[in-house]
């Protein structure tokens, strides 16, 4: 009887699903992650790490494909995690995972601002001013209920990816020299470094799975599954080409800046290329801010409505926007981006490492959920099933767990536990909140409901028949 999303007046097609998946993954932070990856492997063969990471992303695609097929809803993460594990653990992991959105938004705001400062040749302190301006625009747009239309998202993503690809290819061809070691990832580098580069490579695909939150608005449920697969392919081509170009034409000093893509643009088209890539970087922020703010604020809103976060986070403004989470996300992102700027040097590399570790962690959790739900609800409808689930899911769980650990103790090409400490602190704070605060919130919510006047619904007749009919249904 249900008309479903297929019959909706405004349903999302495959193209927009692909651009959403790809656009969410391809943030400005990706340029820095790609440049950082080059430090671990032998220059031109960085593409091999990205390829291996892509294969692992396909594993994650399988896990999210099965889970999204079981729960085709924006609340899927809550559904499958609470179905596979204790709800308090699920909430703690979800809150920690949500923090990656804050990190990515903060990092993008910083990167775009740093790029702007660089191309305008203005004092460095203005970077914070640009960041404040960018985040203010993002917050105000969200508060007014403005969101990028599907077609605008399609155009923005296509422009960013095509521009990055063209600039990379032109920079490579204009370098005038052939690739040195395209098939030797261990040339002058260790096996551990190669492993670290794969962990970082995972980050280049991170967030492609966020498109699952659009499951309720796609024309065909299979679009989500297909879109994620296509997105992984596109991301591999663009990121592998870009990384190879960066490693081939940029100096170590250029790779260590917060705007290596500008130098790449310069190597391809001179000054025009620098400005061009600055503009492209700004466009990436459109997708990040649009997707990041909406995803995070709506999730916080729904969790507050459920009673697991303070009720103030469910307050809506006159445009039905949860204004407290939106402002909170803007403020926290600004603080994080200022800290990154003040720390300088490896500040943004720490963000990349934290993001890479958290992404690998959530992929491991997805593998666990697939395995656990196969045992707990074997008869649940699964439009897509991971083949050889025991081998694949256990393998995925182990691989992604190892990569999460590796990514969390490495910044640049050296051992550094700071990302691990940050993740542990965030995880501990989430767990503490879930164990100590959430029960109180839920009890207060239950008490509030119990204190409400009697049900407005008229009592039923003893035999269970309906109460006398009233104002009728218009036929």
């Amino acid at each position: 009887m249900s008309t479903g999303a297929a019959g909706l007046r405004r349903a999302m097609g495959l193209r927009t699903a692909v651009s959403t998946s790809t656009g969410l993954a391809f943030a400005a932070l990706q340029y820095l992650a790609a440049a950082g990856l080059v430090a671990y492997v032998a220059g031109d063969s960085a593409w091999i790490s990205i390829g291996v990471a892509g294969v692992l992303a396909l594993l994650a695609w399988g896990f999210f494909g099965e889970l999204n097929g079981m729960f085709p809803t924006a609340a899927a993460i809550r559904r499958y995690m609470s179905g596979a594990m204790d709800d308090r653990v699920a909430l703690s992991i979800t809150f920690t995972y949500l923090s990656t959105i804050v990190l990515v938004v903060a990092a993008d705001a910083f990167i775009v601002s740093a790029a702007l400062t660089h191309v305008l040749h203005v004092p460095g302190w203005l970077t914070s001013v640009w960041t404040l301006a960018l985040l203010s625009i993002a917050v105000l747009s969200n508060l007014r209920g403005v969101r990028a239309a599907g077609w605008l998202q399609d155009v923005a993503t296509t422009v960013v990816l095509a521009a990055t690809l063209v600039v990379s290819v032109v920079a490579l061809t204009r370098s005038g020299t052939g690739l040195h070691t395209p098939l030797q990832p261990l040339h002058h580098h260790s096996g551990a470094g190669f492993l670290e580069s794969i962990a970082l490579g995972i980050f280049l695909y991170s967030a492609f799975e966020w498109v699952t939150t659009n499951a309720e608005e796609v024309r065909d449920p299979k679009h989500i599954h297909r879109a994620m697969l296509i997105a992984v392919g596109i991301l591999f081509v663009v990121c592998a080409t870009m990384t190879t170009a960066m490693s081939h034409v940029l100096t170590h000093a250029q790779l260590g800046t917060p705007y290596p893509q500008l130098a790449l643009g310069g190597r391809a088209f001179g000054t025009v290329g620098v400005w061009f890539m600055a503009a492209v970087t700004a466009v990436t922020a459109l997708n990040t801010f649009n997707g990041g703010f909406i995803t995070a604020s709506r999730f916080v809103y729904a969790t507050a409505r459920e009673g697991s976060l303070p009720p103030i986070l469910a307050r809506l403004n006159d445009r039905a926007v949860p204004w407290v989470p939106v402002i909170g996300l803007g403020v926290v992102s600004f603080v994080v981006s200022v800290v990154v700027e003040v720390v300088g040097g490896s500040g943004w590399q720490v963000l990349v490492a934290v993001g890479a570790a958290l992404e690998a962690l959530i992929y491991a959790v997805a593998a666990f959920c697939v395995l656990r739900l196969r045992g707990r609800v074997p008869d649940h409808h699964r439009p897509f099933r991971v083949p050889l689930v025991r081998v694949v899911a256990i393998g995925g769980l182990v691989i992604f767990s190892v990569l999460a650990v590796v990514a969390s103790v490495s910044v640049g090409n050296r051992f550094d536990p700071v990302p691990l400490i940050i993740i542990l602190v965030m995880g501990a704070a989430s767990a503490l909140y879930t164990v100590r605060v959430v029960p109180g919130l839920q009890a207060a919510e239950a008490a509030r409901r119990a204190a409400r006047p009697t049900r407005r619904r008229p009592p039923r007749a003893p035999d269970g028949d309906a109460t006398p009919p009233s104002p009728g249904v218009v036929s």
Partner: protein
Amino acid sequence: MATAEEIAEAYADWQERCNANTRLARMLRGWERTVHLVATDTGEGFTIAVSASVLSDLRSGLVDQPDLVVSATSEDFADLFWGDLNPSEKYLSGEIVLAGSSEDVMRLDAMSMVAFLDQ
């Protein structure tokens, strides 16, 4: 299981609350939508239209092309319109299933919240 008449009665109460709420009228400004309600247990369908910040009467059957489709048991629909259940909780548990854009879903949830919580 709630009958169509029970759902209509509950909806009439909800409709009155919503249309009398000035804050909700501001929230719904410019939001012109057709919403289909599908009772999963009885198989009945209903249609609501929102236009000029006003909720229409409940129509029997699935009329026009929808912007949003809400599927739930008839009992949940009746409870929802009486304000006796939290739709977000039911949604997160999978008992209420939606098809539509996240923006439209937010507006619908806002209607149920503002109408009853006087936020």
